[in-house]
């Protein structure tokens, strides 16, 4: 079987949809953050795949992917700090219970 760009993309979209599914259905804030990591990694896979299969010799896609990984690390650090702060404030990380700004 000849592995082409389509296979990468299919894996990427499955990862992305799984991420969206987790983000929109999980109640636990930490799980939602995991879903976001999945979405980001789906995007990374896309970037790497397009870089590998593009005719040009540049490594732009790989560089972007590295940036996104760093960004994801930073985002995870900040977001987990926020989740910790929320937990201190509300004693829960269930998202639908944190609705004091809705009203």
């Amino acid at each position, binding site marked *: 079987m000849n592995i082409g760009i389509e296979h990468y993309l299919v894996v990427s979209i499955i990862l992305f949809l799984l991420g*969206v599914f987790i*983000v*929109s*259905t999980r109640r636990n804030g930490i799980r*939602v953050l995991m879903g976001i990591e999945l979405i980001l990694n789906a995007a990374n896979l896309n970037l790497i795949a397009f870089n590998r299969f593009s005719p040009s010799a540049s490594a732009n896609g790989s560089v972007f992917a590295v940036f996104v990984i760093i960004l994801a690390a930073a985002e995870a650090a900040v977001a987990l700090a926020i989740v910790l702060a929320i937990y201190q404030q509300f004693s829960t990380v269930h*998202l*639908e219970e944190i*609705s004091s*700004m*809705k009203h």
Partner: protein
Amino acid sequence: MEIYEILAWAIIGLPLASFGLQLAFGKRLPRQGDWLPTGAIWLSLILGIVLFVKVIVLEYDPHFLKQYSYLWFGGAGMMEFHFGFHIDNLTAVMVMVVTIVSALVHLFSIGYMHGEDCYDRYFAYLSLFSFSMLLLVLCDNLFVLYITWELVGVSSYLLIGFFFWKTSAANACMKAFLTTRVGDVFMFLGIMLVVREIGLLNYSKVFDAVAHGQLNGTLLTIAAVCLFGGAVGKSAQFPLHVWLPDAMEGPTPVSALIHAATMVAAGVYMVGRLFPIFSASHEAMLVIAYIGLITAFFAATIAITQTDIKRVLAYSTVSQLGYMITALGVGAFTAGLYHLMTHAFFKALLFLGSGSVIHALHSQELPDMGGLKKKLPITWATMLIATLAISGVPFFSGFGSKDAILAGALAFGMENPSHMPIFIGLWLAAGVTAFYMFRLIFLTFYGEPRVPEKFAHAHESPSVMTIPLITLAALSVLGGFGLYGGLWFNHLIVAPAAAHAAEGAAEHGGEHSEHFAHYLAMVLSIIVALSGIFLSYLVYYKKKISAESWAVKLRPLYDLSFHKYWVDEFYDKTAIRFLLWIRMVFARFDNKVIDGLVNITAPGLRGTSTFSGAWDKYVVDGLVNLLAIATQIAGAASTLIQSGVIQNYILKASLAAGAVLLLHNYIIRLFA
């Protein structure tokens, strides 16, 4: 701006400003603001003196004329209406007369009206009157003349009815206003005729047009007689004289200012001002002369038997105005206007004097008076001077002017023997005038007090009232020196040139007959005045002749005079009854026909209004409510989307993005 223009603006502006201020703040000012209009009119008097000195003394030119005209409104396809000043010798003299009398009356009023209700409003009205009267003499066209003509009428109405809680005063002011309105309507018609034929309003331009025959023949006569109608109303000439005696219901200083010295003389002034129009029509001049004659004679005979001191003076005023009108009618222009000036001084003095008597005695009936000479020495002396002046005794002002009028009438009569009755009538009226005026003096100041308890409380008025009396007395004497030996008045106030060109009047008599007429008239008028005084002396002082027994002997004549020739009763039976009848007919028409029609249409209207009410309530309101409900439902539905849970938003956004991706081909085709 030239000095005359500034003076004119200031002279009318001061009383107008004080009227506004007094009306707005009068009650809150100290002394109820009486000093404000008084100060304003005294300033106007000073400016009037400046104007007089500049025009009469410094210029000394019979043809002096300054005109200042400003476009008010109109133009661009319609008639132009101007506002402007027409300043000549006559204007200067009139401004002087009006401001002097008005200033003195303001001063007198401070004493006379002291403690009356609405004291502040009284002074506001006086200011309004002063403004209107000064603008009347200063204005330069028929349009402004008519406006001020009505304005003085309004102020007269307000001041006659000043004691409005008295029914007689309320009726009198209404009568005065409506009676003069009759004349004013004619005047308006006259102005309309002038506008229709000439199309201009400015005095000088209208006179030019008349001199060039743009308005001539019968139409000119009609226009002139209509304009004269205004003077008949305002100057209380027969047959519209009935309002003036009733106007005595107003405060006495008002009678002196408005109903003796200035406003009633406005008619004479108007005839003098528009003399080129009148003198161009021989017939109009005859109408003027005879109306004046009838008025002069018959008002004088009424004055003999009246018992109210102010009514005697009122009829005397009517009679003297008749003199002036006759003088203008026979072409004795200078004499008529000179009499206007002298009469303003001595008649204002007589009224203020009678005001002083009334103030002291609280009665205006002659039978309540008598013997007041000792109690009111200043009032007595000044009124005696005025009486000598009005009777035409030599060396007093009335002698000069009355003698000049008689001379003019005599010259006119000698030229046209068929019009000799004018002179004879005026001559007899002069005797009657001397008689009734001395009757007034004898009954008021001489003999025994007839009502001792009133006499006991009588006292001389305060100096704020006696100073105007003394000033006017001085003017009543000095005013006479304008005419002797061809002094300034004779030289400066001459009939406009158009009069000479158009129609023969007294001026055509030639030097000789005029001089002859002058000396003859002088001798005759002295004789008749002295015999009137002597007769009065015999009847009312010496009691050699009993007035009562003669009244019985001449019962019909006495009744005729006492009941004022039944003119009021005649109007009551004819014009007023007719008007009341018409009023009743209209009322009935209103009640039966118009109300009937309304009643018929009412049920129909009710039906349609019920229908439209229902339509409104159910259909229109229903639609509005429906819309509101639909909006509410839509709002409620759209709030469901906003759950506030971020995950829902993400899901919705993702679904929408997926939908856009799937359908993007269709969407692009939609916009292609």
